[in-house]
Every structure is written in C-alpha cells, then in structure tokens.
C-alpha cells in the first residue's frame, strides 16, 4: 500500500525515541527501581549510560541492514519467508505485550490519581482510540504529534528542574553504596531493560521514511540518551527532594514529588499539569505499538486497501484495550511482574532474539562481501 503521509524528520524520530524510553517506567519501572535500588538508584542510572551502549549498537547494526526496509521486510530477507514470518510474529508478540502493559499502567495511573470513579474501560478506550486514529493518519501524524508534545515536555522539564532542583537535600543520597557496587550494577540492568525494550518499535520505520536520513543514527542516539538523561534526572530529583524511603512508600513517586513544585511560591498545585509528561510517554508508546502491529498485519496479509488497514488498526486497538483490562489481578501483581519478570522474561529474551538476528545480519553481510 502506498502511503502519502510516511515521512518524519530526524528531530521527530529523536522525540519518539525519547518518549518510548520513558513509557515502561510509568507505573512500573519507577516504583520497582526504587524498591530495588533505593537511594543508590542514581548510581544505577549512571552505570546504565554505559550498559545502554550494547543494545544501542545492536539496534543500529540491525537498522543499518537494508536500511530502506522496515523490520518485517528485513527479517524476511534475513531468514526467508517462513522463519522470517515466525520472527516477525514473535517480535509483534513482544510489542503487543508492551502495548497491553503500558495501557494497563496508564489506565491505573489515571484511575488512581485523577479519575477514581471513571470506569477503566472508558479510560483505556479513550487512550487506544486516539492512538489508533493517529496511526491511521500515518507516521507523519505520529511524528508531528510527538513534536508538539516535545515542546510541552521542555516546558514541564524546565519547571521541574528549576523548582525541584532547589529543594534537593544532599543528605538523602547518603550513605552511598552500603552493599557495595554489585547491587547498583545489577539494578542498572533493570534500568536498561525498562528503558530499552520499547525501542524495538523504532525498527518499523524504514530509513527512507526519514527526512535528513544521513544523520539518522545521531538522531536515534540523541533520543535514547536524552530519554536516559531525563529518567536519571527524575530519579535524582525524587531521591533528593523526598528521599528514597518516602519514594518507596508511594506507587507514583514521580507524581508525588511534582506536588512540591512551586513557581516563586505563588503558583502551586501543578502536579496534574506536570504529570502530563508521563502520559505523553505512554501515549507515544501506545501509538507506536499500534502502528507497529498494523504494519505487521499489513505486511503479513499484504493489505493494500487503506480502509481494511484502518479497520485492522482499530481492531488491534480494541483487542489491546480489552486485554489491558484483564492483564493483572491487582496492582501488587503488576509491581512484582515489573520487578522480577519483565527484565528476565521480556527484556532478556528480546535481547537474546536481537543478538540472534544481528548474528544473522553479520553472516548475511559476510556472505554478500564474499
């Protein structure tokens, strides 16, 4: 199917990447990182800067293989029709799971903090239908949406940094490394897993769909590390302002710390506005995941009609919305899952699959050269 709205700028790619890095932290990552790493979380996030180099290189290496093809076409050309399709189904399974997970956490966040009596299906429905609508309009619309959200994000970040930065109490970071460096190293892997896992969705955008694609890698790396920096900053501000003990007490410590934001002592109670940033993250992940899955079906069933593609997109959204309502029995299960299962069963297996795919890319490149 020929698309007319299929171009995004390098900046938009960077912004989408940055939003994807933060999405899993909402409702899952932040609380589980605090309960795991406590006050040494800032150290884990710094170590994670280094750990992130490995998956970044893997992703870039993969993206450089037949750069003008999307992930599904790449896999088919790497593994052949049948195995390639199986790999695509597995990767789509991961994306569907992340979509459902993030929908669940966004709905939970909205219900807990804002709309206590609003039915969860209504909130999940609003989320997915808006995201599905953006998806049917093409990647250009997603890119432009992310760009608008980026400017709002800059305002939110400036307010947060200026206001919370002055409230940091350095004592809250002490004592440091009471159990040695090993736990922060281990927790940096958790950090990286929450941060990096959603980035597989970026591979659905072929290089040809990016304007200024010569600097494609730079924009991608900038997006990853800006996202990383914002998360590290978030953890530092939370620890410094309310202490890791208080942060571990709350399910949404990032929302709680934003209650302390005050502009000049006169403008207070900005937490609902400032926490929009977390919704931007989850919204972009939901949108990109629906886009990824609609592209998967388009590729799998060779859908040419725009109308059928739209129906598929809405169908995926409704199914994801329904699944998200029944994903976990309760919040405790979800936090336990984020802490123990997500890094092992989702991130590690996905990393393993990416390593296999990259080995295949390496062999293919060698064969081509030979």
């Amino acid at each position, binding site marked *: 199917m020929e698309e007319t709205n299929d171009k995004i700028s390098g900046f938009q790619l960077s912004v989408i990447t940055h939003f994807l890095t933060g999405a899993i932290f909402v409702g899952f990552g932040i609380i589980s990182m605090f309960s795991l790493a406590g006050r040494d979380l800032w150290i884990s996030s710094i170590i994670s800067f280094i750990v992130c180099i490995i998956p970044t290189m893997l992703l870039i290496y993969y993206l450089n293989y037949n750069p003008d093809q999307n992930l599904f076409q790449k896999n088919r050309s790497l593994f052949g029709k049948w195995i390639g399709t199986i790999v695509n189904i597995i990767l789509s399974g991961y994306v569907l799971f992340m979509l459902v997970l993030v929908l669940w956490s966004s709905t939970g966040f909205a219900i807990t903090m804002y709309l206590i009596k*609003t039915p969860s299906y*209504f909130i999940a429905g609003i989320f997915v239908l808006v995201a599905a609508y953006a998806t049917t309009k093409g990647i250009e619309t997603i890119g432009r949406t992310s760009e608008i959200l980026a400017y709002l994000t800059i305002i939110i970040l400036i307010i947060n940094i200026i206001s919370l930065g002055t409230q940091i109490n350095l*004592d809250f970071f002490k004592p440091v490394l009471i159990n040695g460096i090993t736990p922060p190293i281990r927790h940096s892997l958790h950090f990286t897993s929450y941060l990096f896992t959603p980035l597989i969705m970026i591979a659905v955008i072929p290089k040809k769909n990016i304007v200024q694609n010569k600097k494609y890698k730079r924009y991608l790396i900038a997006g990853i590390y800006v996202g990383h920096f914002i998360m590290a900053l978030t953890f530092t501000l939370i620890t410094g302002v309310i202490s890791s003990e208080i942060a571990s007490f709350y399910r949404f410590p990032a929302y709680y710390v934003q*209650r302390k934001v005050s502009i000049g002592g006169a403008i207070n109670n900005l937490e609902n506005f400032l926490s929009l940033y977390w919704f931007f993250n989850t919204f972009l992940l939901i949108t990109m995941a629906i886009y990824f899955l609609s592209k998967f079906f388009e590729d799998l069933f060779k859908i040419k009609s725009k109308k059928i593609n739209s129906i598929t997109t809405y169908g995926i959204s409704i199914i994801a919305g329904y699944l998200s309502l029944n994903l976990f029995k309760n919040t405790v299960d979800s936090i336990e899952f984020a802490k123990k299962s997500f890094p092992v069963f989702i991130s590690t297996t996905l990393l393993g699959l990416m390593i296999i795919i990259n080995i295949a890319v390496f062999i293919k490149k060698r064969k081509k050269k030979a």
Partner: protein
Amino acid sequence: MKYIKFFILTLSILLLTGCWNYRELEDLLIVSALGIDSNEDGFDISVEVINDKMVGGGEQSSGSSSEETPIVVYSSKAKTIREAIDKIILESPKRLYLGHMNLLVISEDIAKKGINEFLDYFMRDTEIRKTFFTTVVKNAKASDVLKILQPIENITAVSIQSSLEIANVYYGEFSNQTLEEIVRCLFTTGRNPTIAATEVTGDVKKGSKNDNVSTTSPKTSIKVKGTTVFKGDKLVGYLNEKEAIYYAVVRDKIDTISLSFPCDKKDNYANIIIDGVKGKLKATVDKDEPKIAIDIAGNAAITEFNCKIDLKKPSNIKKIEEMANKEIVKQMKKTVKKVKELNSDIFGFEEQFYRNHYKYWKKKKDKWDELFKDIEVKVKSDIKIERISSSVETAKSR
C-alpha cells in the same frame, strides 16, 4: 464519511463535557480539619466542615441566622478512619471533601498509643494532600479543639494553622510539622518525629458557642505550646516553647529567633533578634566514641537593652555578643539534656552517624539507645551583633 465524522464530533461534545468524577462545589462539604480521639473500639473521628452560609464574602447569605456558626463539627466512631468518615455522610447533608484539609488534630491518648495506627489512611488516600499540619492537643479531646470558636479567624483549623505558622516565623518555635515530615522521620533511620503541641485554656463547652467570639477577651482559646516528642510512633514527652526553639535551631528549620538574656548581674535583660540562624550538626567518632558538635551562627540586631552599658563602644558590643552566645549555649545544653532524658533522638544524632559514619553506625546500631544517653555533645555559638536598631544609647545609660 462526512456523516461519520460529524457524528463522532457531536458525540465528543457530549462525552468530553465532564467525567464520572464530576462533583459540584455546592454538593460538597469542605473539611478544614480532622480530629482523632481513641476509644476502646477504635477511633472517634471529628471533622470540622466549613459552613458556607456563614463563610465567604464576609456577609451572611440569605437564610442564615446570626445563631449559626462558621463551622460545624460532625463526629462518628468506627474501627477505621475511612469507615468513620463514611458514617458521617449519614449525618451530614453533603459529601465530605478532604482535599482542602488544613489540620489534623491528634489527642494525647491516641498519640501515646501510637500514630501508626491511623497514618496509613492519610498517606494512601489520593484526595488528601500530604502537606496539612498536625498537632497534638495536650489537655482536651481532639473533637473539643475543633469545636472552639476563635476570634479574628472564623475557621478553627485556619486559626490554629496560622498560629503554628506564625509561631515558627516570628517566634522561632518549630511547630509546623506536616504529615510528610512526620512520615519521613518514621521511615528514615535515626530520627524520631515531633509534632506541634497545642493546649486549650478555658472551658471547652463555652468555647464552642458564638459568645466566645463576641467578646473582647475570649474565655476559651487554643494556644501553641511547644513540641511533642515521639519515640518511634509513640508520644513520650513534651518540649516547652523555649526548648522547641533550640530543637528547631539544631534541625536548621528556623530563620529568625528572638533571644532574651541577662546583660548584667542586676537581673536586667536585653533582647536580640537573630536573623539567618544556621544550625549545623556534625557527627564524629573519636576512639570508638560517638561525638556530636552543634554549631550555631547568625547575625543579630539589638531590639531592647535594659542595662547600663555604653553601646557606642565596640568592646561592649563584643561583650554583649559573648553574653548572647553564652545564653544560647546554656539553653541548647538544657534542651539536649531534656531530650536525652526523654531518650528519643529527635535531633537526628543517629541519622548523622547513619549517613556519614555508616560502618560505625552498623556496629553500634543495636546499642544506640544507651549511646544516645551518654553521647558527648559540644555546642558552639557564634552570633554576631550587626545592628543596634534606631538608638545608639540605652535608656539606662543616663
């Protein structure tokens, strides 16, 4: 397609006008304070709600009578705070809204039993802000305190909250502990919480009538009275107003203090206002013994001087500085002694060792109660007198 878009847009207009949580202000009773007393079966909860007929705009709206009070207090009993609040709904004409709660009043008996019994609700509920003030009432029930009508400020909760803030800013008494600060103390290693103490003077029953505010000298009033001392979550004692000030200095929680001290041997006194008070706590370990140093600094202005000393002489200013510093060291030592007697580390001496001498703390953490009683505390005060206000002479100098 056009019709579908039109239909979706029309539907959006209907759907996006509000949400399930939509509540009209006129359907809510704004809770300004909540009081907790204990009973054998659980909690006695009292909520002070604002009577919107009497408050707002300064004028009584139609239908209100002069007999009505600006606040109404509802009470109920239950095993949990939430249940007690829910029970009040059966009595009140509107739904209670706790989002603007300013004050939590805790009775002495429940504070002695332990505040962990009821804190969870306030931490867990998303509607309640965690920045409201708390106070322990010494000689009355929490429900009684909420009923006392105060002059100047119509709403009792606002009146007490203002008193706590003003006591902190102008008198230097550290009283404005918010729920969040209390919880941080309970959750952090090495420091026990404190909560502002209040006291009722006069007859509580008379204080709940409009007569109490229609006189130039109210018979019943509520007064900020120092600070409570908790060990863990249990109340173990009180610090008086002066001791509360020195506690606040150690915690570096106040900016200005007013200090009166003897300026000669004839029982004459001077007063200085110290601005930019800085209290610094430092923990050291010397020969396996824990030591604490408290350093106090600030710049002062003489506000009253009732001794016969020539203030124009620089050497005399130096002498006055020494007198002031001596008084501060004396008062600080007295406060530390009192806190040691109560055996509750509200200063956070242990926290200093935990944060800065972790290995030492780990070795000694089980014996901290004994160590705290005997810990050596050195106090150093370095207050500089910068200004002598508008007089260069003293009234007694001639």
